[in-house]
C-alpha cells in the first residue's frame, strides 16, 4: 500500500524523525495561508501524488513543475493553481500523468549536503536492510548501476533493530563529522524502528539533508507498506488514497481477486498467479497483448468469478477473453457454472475462449458443451492462445 509524502512525513514526525514543517493545501487560498502560517521568507510547494520524479515532472500542457520554490503567499497560490486538479506527468506516471489533489507547502531548508537513506526487506538475507549513499537527490537505481560502491548497507534484526555501531559505521562512511554523527545515529535507528513498527516494505529518504548547522532532516519521504500486514494496522489503512489507485483494481480487491490492469485487448481469467503470468506471456508469444493479469485464486466461488468477468468486460479495450483454468482446489465444474452465470448476468459481447484442465475437467467441459453458449473450447495452452489471439484480431477488425 502506498501513501503520500505528507502522510509519510507525519508518521515520521510522530516517531521522532526530523522532517521539515509543512501544511497540506487543497486550494490556492489554503496554499497562501500555509505560506503565511509557516512564517518564513521561503517555502516549497510540492505536488502530492503517489509517483516519484515530481521535481522534474511537468503539468500537462503547461510549464509548471511538480515542485517549486516560492517567496510569497501570492506565489504559493500561483503554483498551487498551476498544480491542483491538473495532470502531472513524471517519469514514473507515464504519459497520462496523475491528477494532483493536494499540495504540500513546506518551510525552506538550508541544504549543505544531500544523502540517500533507504530501507527494504532483502530476500537474500531474509530480513530488513538499511542502505545509505552520499549520492542523495539522485535516482538511486542509476547509482546502483553505475557506482554501486557508493552505496553502503547494514542488515538488522526486526526486533533488535539497528545497532549503534552499525549507525556509526555508516555515518563515518558518509563522511559525517561532529554533531552530525550523533544526529545520524539517532535518525537511522529511529527510521529502522518505524520501518518495523509499521510493517513497511519500503522507506526511502531521498534526499536526507545535512543542514549548514549539521542537523539531519528528511527533505522527502516515501513509505510503502506490506499489504499482507495491513490487517494489523487499521490506522494506516485509513491513509489509503483510493483516487490514486486504478478503479478496476480496487473493485477486484474488494471481491477478493488479484487484478492488474494492462494495455492490451485480450482479457485473461486464470487460477494461480504463476499460471496467470504465464498466460499473459503465452498471449504475447502468439502475437496478442494481454489486457490484464487476473488471479481468481483457488477458492473462488460463482459470485467472485462472475464479478471477475464483469471487471474484464468493463474494460473497453477488451476484444476477446481467455479463461485458462487448471483446477487443483478450484474445480472445473465451479468455473463452468460461473461462466454460465456470468453470461446470463453480464452478457458476453466479445468472443470467449475457455481452456479447462484438472479437477472435474470432464464434467466441467460437459457443462459448457451442453449449454447453448457460443464458447470456443481449447485443448491445451498453445491451442488456447492461438484461438484467442485470432478471435481478438477478428473482433478488432469488425
Amino acid at each position: 500500500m502506498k501513501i503520500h509524502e505528507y502522510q509519510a512525513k507525519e508518521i515520521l514526525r510522530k516517531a521522532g524523525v526530523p522532517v521539515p514543517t509543512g501544511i497540506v493545501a487543497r486550494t490556492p487560498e489554503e496554499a497562501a495561508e500555509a505560506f503565511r502560517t509557516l512564517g518564513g521568507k521561503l517555502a516549497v510547494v510540492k505536488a502530492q501524488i503517489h509517483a516519484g520524479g515530481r521535481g522534474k515532472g511537468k503539468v500537462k500542457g503547461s510549464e509548471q513543475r511538480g515542485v517549486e520554490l516560492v517567496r510569497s503567499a501570492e506565489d504559493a497560490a500561483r503554483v498551487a493553481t498551476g498544480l491542483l486538479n491538473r495532470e502531472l506527468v513524471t517519469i514514473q506516471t507515464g504519459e497520462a500523468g496523475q491528477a494532483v489533489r493536494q499540495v504540500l507547502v513546506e518551510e525552506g531548508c538550508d541544504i549543505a549536503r544531500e544523502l540517500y537513506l533507504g530501507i527494504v526487506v532483502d530476500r537474500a538475507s531474509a530480513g530488513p536492510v538499511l542502505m545509505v549513499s552520499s549520492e542523495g537527490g539522485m535516482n538511486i537505481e542509476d547509482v546502483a548501476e553505475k557506482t554501486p560502491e557508493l552505496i553502503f548497507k547494514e542488515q538488522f534484526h526486526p526486533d533488535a533493530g539497528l545497532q549503534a555501531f552499525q549507525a556509526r559505521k555508516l555515518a563515518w562512511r558518509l563522511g559525517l563529522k561532529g554533531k552530525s554523527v550523533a544526529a545520524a545515529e539517532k535518525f537511522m535507528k529511529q527510521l529502522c524502528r518505524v520501518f518495523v513498527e509499521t510493517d513497511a516494505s519500503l522507506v526511502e529518504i531521498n534526499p536526507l539533508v545535512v543542514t549548514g548547522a549539521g542537523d539531519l532532516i528528511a527533505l522527502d519521504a516515501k513509505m510503502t507498506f506490506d499489504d499482507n500486514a495491513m490487517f494489523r494496522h487499521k490506522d494506516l489503512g485509513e491513509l489509503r488514497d483510493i483516487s490514486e489507485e486504478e478503479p478496476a483494481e480496487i473493485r477486484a480487491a474488494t471481491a477478493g481477486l488479484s487484478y492488474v490492469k494492462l494495455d492490451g485487448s485480450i482479457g485473461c481469467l486464470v487460477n494461480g498467479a504463476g499460471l496467470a503470468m504465464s498466460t499473459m506471456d503465452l498471449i504475447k508469444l502468439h502475437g496478442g497483448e494481454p489486457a490484464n493479469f487476473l488471479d481468481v485464486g483457488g477458492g473462488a466461488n460463482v459470485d467472485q468469478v462472475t464479478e471477475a468477468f464483469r471487471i474484464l468486460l468493463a474494460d473497453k479495450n477488451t476484444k476477446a477473453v481467455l479463461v485458462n483454468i487448471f483446477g487443483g482446489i478450484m474445480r472445473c465444474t465451479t468455473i463452468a457454472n460461473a461462466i454460465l452465470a456470468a453470461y446470463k448476468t453480464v452478457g458476453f459481447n466479445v468472443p470467449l475462449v475457455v481452456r479447462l484442465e484438472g479437477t472435474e475437467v470432464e464434467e466441467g467441459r460437459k457443462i459448457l458443451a451442453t449449454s447453448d453458449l457460443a464458447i470456443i473450447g481449447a485443448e491445451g495452452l498453445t491451442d488456447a492462445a492461438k484461438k484467442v489471439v485470432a478471435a481478438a484480431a477478428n473482433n478488432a477488425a469488425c
Partner: protein
Amino acid sequence: MSILINKNTRVLCQGITGKVGQFHTKGCLEYGTKMVGGVTPGKGGEKVLDLPVFDTVAEAVEKTGADATMIFVPPAFTADAILEAVDAGIKTVIAITEGVPVLDMARAYEIVRRSKSTLIGPNCPGVITPEECKIGIMPGYIHKKGPVGVMSRSGTLTYEAVWQLSNLGLGQSTCVGLGGDPIVGTSFIDLLKMFQDDPATEAILMMGEIGGTAEEEAAAYVRDHVTKPVAAFIAGRAAPPGKRMGHAGAIISGGKGTATEKIAALEAAGIEVAQSPADMGEALKRAIGRKRR
C-alpha cells in the same frame, strides 16, 4: 527414493478443524498420505476425519510420532505455527497459507535456519512424492512416479508442468512448491542439492517467476554443482515493472528481478529454458537429450 517426504512420513495438520484444513486433510488421506493427527489450540480431544486433534504440536508429536506437518493456519498466526512445529522437533514443516506478513517470516526464518527442520513455504501448494505421500493442495491424479524432480515458486503453473511431464511418460520423483512470497523457507539451491544427491532423480525441472534473484543464484549453483540435466521456465516476461503480480514476491523492483535477466542467467549456465509455458515438458526432454550426447 525421493526428497523430503515418502510413504513412511507421518503427517499432522495444524489448523485441521478449519474448513480448508479439513478439506485438504481429506484430500491427502484419499491420496494415501499417513495423516496421523491435527493441532488446533483449544480443540484438543476432538476428532476430525477420525484423526485425533491436539492442543499443541509437542503433544501431537509425542502421541503420534509425527515427523511432518501441513499448516493451514490463518496468516496472522502462521509464523507462530511454524515456530511451534520447529520447536516440537518436526523435521518437515510445510506452510500452505498465503498472506503472511513479510517481517513475521523474517523473524521466523532466522530461527528455522538454525534448527534441524526444513520449512517449505509459506504461500505454497505443498510437496508430493507421487504414489507415496502428498502434503498439500495439489491434484494427486496428475502426478506419476518417475525420474524428474520438480520445483516451482507457483502452484497451478506447477500442475501444468507436471501434467505435461506425465503425458510425455516422464514421471516425477518429488514435486516441491517453494511458495510465492519474498521470504520462503527453502530455496531453489537447497532443493537442487537434494535432487542432485537423490538416486531416484535423474533430471530437474524448475519454474521461476519475476522478482528477486533466486533463479540467478540457482543458475550459478547448477553451473558449479549439478551434473543432472536441468530445464526451466520463467513466468512474467510480459509483466510491467513496479506492479505486484499476485504473489507477494512477484514484483520487478529497481530494474531487478526481470524475466529477461533470469532467462539469460539460466541459459548461460547450460539450462534449457522453455520459451512458452506449453513447452515445459518438452524443454526437460531436450535437456535430457543434450546431456546424453
